[in-house]
């Protein structure tokens, strides 16, 4: 088994964990973390295929894409966090569903 195969399979598992987390967890912070884990899975698949296509160096285009993607993901997650905190301040709710 090659290194890139291990990590590409891991990336699919991570994506599904994140997807499940977005559905299952209720608290805003957990939902945001779940989306970041999903993103991590996608990035991992990109980088593992860059490793597969390596000649003298690994394919740099996916690397550059992933660096860009990480920063964009962080910017959007920071915005989501600001929204969550604002909702909590105004309504006292920590999730979209009310606790019974």
């Amino acid at each position, binding site marked *: 088994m090659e290194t890139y195969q291990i990590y590409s399979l*891991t990336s699919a598992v991570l994506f599904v964990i994140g*997807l499940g987390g977005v559905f299952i967890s209720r608290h805003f912070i957990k939902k945001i973390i779940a989306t*970041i884990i999903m993103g991590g899975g996608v990035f991992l698949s990109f980088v593992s295929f860059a490793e597969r296509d390596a000649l003298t160096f690994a394919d740099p285009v996916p690397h550059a894409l992933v660096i860009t993607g990480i920063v964009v993901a962080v910017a959007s997650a920071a915005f989501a966090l600001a929204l969550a905190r604002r909702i909590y301040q105004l309504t006292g709710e920590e999730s979209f569903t009310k606790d019974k």
Partner: protein
Amino acid sequence: MSVLIDIILAILAIYLAFQSLLAKRLTQTVFIFFAFGLALALAWVRLGAIDVAITEAAIAAGFMGVLFLDALRDFSPRTSNNQEKTEAAKDIFSKKNTKSLLLPRVALVLGLVLFLLISLEAIWNIPDGGGLTVSVETMLPESGVEHPVTAVLLNFRAYDTWLEIGVILLGLLAIFATGGIKLYLKPDVPAQDILLRQVILFFTPILFLFGAFLLYIGKSGPGGAFQAGVLWAAIGILLHLGGKPVFSMIPRWLGQLLLTLGLGFFLLLGFILMAGGATLFEYPPAYAGVLILIVETLAAISIAAALTAIFANLNQMQEKPNDIESTT
């Protein structure tokens, strides 16, 4: 032997992702998320993507973790008051909701398993297109830098990088729109600890130097504008936490200039190049190295300023209870 390390690392990353979503308390979630980010960074080192590893460790684990920790100040008091009650209802898999949610739960789990199988199959059989390594390698001498990732980021796909700086700025503006512009307020920090203040003062020049080193080394090795920008942002965050908020200490126009410098200069350079007959961001090979270094420096300054501003604004978002009445 090395395959064993990869397998352990992969299992560790999956386990940490699971645990951070299933943890009982929010604090645990956030700290396991830190660990998850670092495990992912190690995975990227194993895959030979050192640039990505530095970016991940610095921004996705470090910066994002700091934001989450800061957010916990808002959320945790309530959770600790009636922790038992809220935590029990938090999870679909808790016993309280067993009967009414049986069908949706089964459907969700089945759907996720099916999705997992399909994506595993798709990833296993993904066709080998050969990638773009050869194209990058042939054009590398004209790019003005020796490191292929920097060449792609700042020359071949400079358009993406330019827009990305814009996205960070857009995120900052969206945060302003959400919680009001709190950037220029002074945080009411209690009397500062002398040790903390001294350590922050000691680390400031070292972080600056290390950021500059990463920026410069990006020409020939792993490093570059983003990594340097995040390190410089760490200076701003440390100073903010030490009671010296950078943005309320410098004049407003200077803060705005720092925030927009990278985006603006990038665009200006693109226009100048277009006026000279080239396409957007097509650097003349003779000057490419110098131009890239200038653009990278300004981009790093802007990224650092924007990330610091995001942290400072989020940090100041917490309001006193009586403030809330007046804003609604």
